[in-house]
């Protein structure tokens, strides 16, 4: 399903804890979107030629009875997200999407552990819906720096069979990182799949824990993107390529890697496929092997 460009009317922008949730009329995108995919957003009529900004799709209302809407959740960190935070209903936003490779659900019903960090939890709700529709059990682990940066834990509780919460400062749930409860949970829930979205260091750690437990793990990464459509080679990260002939190496198992465009082959990758240390995030799967090289 090829992506489309849509000029989307803003239905609503509301605060959710430390974040903003933006609901847009986007029939084409709402029709085609799959969990883990993202949109490239251009807001405002600024003439300084700002690049688009990528955001995960938090959820969609498929067109039909409704007109078809897509929702994104964002944190204000700079000019682009500030422009989004100034949007009012009826303003128009320019979107490209759905972009990128989505999460792959298991072929057979299986237990799925969804691990979200900060706003990274947002796309996992979309995923949880799809997994449950496929009769998979869904358990949630969500973490953030502080309680207000946990995105909508209530919803996670509603959607999940169980919910574990961690915060760096202990202001909510257990004090610590999302990875702390992971080994227990994997054992207890007997999950056959791990799906994670959040900051890169967290994704590296989750991938390692899952690999150690022998559980397949898919992660949605965040790399800087100029185009989001595969044409600029800005968003690359090193992934392993068994038997690849090109230069360079550094994969988890020391096998060759290549620079993959995360907007095209990602943002969802197999966590064990990413050369985390080479990517600048030691603490990924089998780091000793990487460091050994």
């Amino acid at each position, binding site marked *: 399903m090829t992506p489309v*460009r849509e000029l989307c009317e803003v239905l609503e922008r509301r605060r959710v804890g430390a974040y903003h949730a933006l609901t847009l009329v986007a029939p084409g995108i709402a029709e085609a979107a799959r969990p883990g995919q993202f949109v490239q957003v251009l807001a405002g009529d600024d003439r300084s030629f*700002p*690049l688009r900004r990528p955001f995960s799709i938090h959820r969609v209302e498929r067109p039909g009875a409704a007109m078809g809407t897509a929702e994104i959740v964002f944190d204000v960190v700079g000019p682009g997200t500030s422009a989004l935070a100034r949007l009012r209903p009826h303003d128009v936003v320019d979107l490209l999407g759905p972009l990128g490779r989505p999460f792959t659900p298991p072929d057979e019903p299986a237990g799925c552990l969804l691990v979200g960090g900060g706003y990274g939890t947002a796309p996992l709700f979309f995923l949880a819906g799809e997994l449950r529709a496929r009769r998979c059990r869904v358990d949630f682990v969500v973490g953030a720096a502080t309680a207000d940066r946990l995105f909508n834990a209530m919803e996670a509780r509603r959607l999940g069979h169980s919910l574990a919460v961690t915060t760096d400062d202990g202001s909510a749930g257990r004090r610590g990182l999302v990875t702390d409860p992971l080994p227990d949970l994997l054992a207890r829930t007997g999950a056959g799949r791990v799906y994670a979205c959040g900051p890169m260091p967290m994704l590296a750690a989750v991938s390692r824990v899952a690999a150690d437990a022998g559980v397949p793990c898919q992660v949605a990464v965040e790399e*800087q993107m100029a*185009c989001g459509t595969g*044409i*600029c080679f800005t968003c690359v990260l090193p992934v392993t390529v068994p038997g690849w002939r*090109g*230069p360079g190496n550094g994969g988890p198992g020391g096998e060759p890697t*290549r620079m993959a465009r995360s907007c095209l082959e990602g943002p969802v990758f197999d966590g064990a496929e990413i050369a985390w240390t080479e990517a600048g995030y030691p603490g990924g799967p089998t780091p000793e092997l990487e460091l050994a090289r």
Partner: protein
Amino acid sequence: MTVDLAVDLCGVRLKTPVLAASGCFGFGREMAGWVDLAELGGIVTKSVSLEPRRGRPTPRMAETPSGMLNAIGLQNPGVEAFCATDLRFLAEAGATVVASLVGRSPEEFGRLAARLAGEPAVALLELNLSCPNVEHRGEVFATDPELAAEVVRAVKRSSNQPVLAKLTADVTDLVAVARAVVDAGADGLTLINTLLGMAVDVGRRRPRLAAATGGLSGPAIRPVAVRCVWQVAGALPGVPIVGTGGIVTAADAAEFLLVGATAVAVGTGNFINPRAVVEVAAGLERYLAGQGAGSPAELPALFKAER
């Protein structure tokens, strides 16, 4: 007033004067879902080298006022993989292909040209003599007329496809470089590549690009690019020029055609509008009709300015 957008670029007929610039359209395949590749004036591929290149570390990009810096570092799968996959795809899609070549020596350029000489799908060659994202400034052949000419000669010896030499504005005397490559056999010129620039993250107190410096592109550089085309078109009348730099709208493209470009290439503009190449061409058609011009080639004669 009926308008025919077709132009002749170094003996090759382009359906429109609007191409996709190298490195800003991938290898074309990625955009097949957004535009009909056969309808474009042409696609200049990401520059290909003899061996695959990994490119530079990330971050590779930084947004700047009305532009961006990039330090991609010429990542590409190498000419063999390019021919096996990308070129075949483009041929089947009916695209007009301008293969951009990059090498570390005139000899490498020559071997690349030799490899592509037998590829009918390649309509033109563009020699990237001007990428700022290289380890040594010495690799920026377009900063030295003699070196640049040597590359062109090496390529012409091993290929009879028409050749565009892509130059940089980061030189003291652009006309001298242009004259040197034309005398060496270049059939046309592409002006300009990115300007060498740098941006600083003052909070973290470090460069915003992992490579420290990178290439500046986008509307910010358009006035420099237009000036370069104006200068060279005046000094070397009759030499076809592909104008590149900050083109986002049809009006931007018209600036280049008026000052003497035969065609234009849209680069960074594709990142914001994946249909930019098509929409700029459509806008040019309206512009030409409005100006009473039957084809892009008529514009320079309608431009009022003394040199």
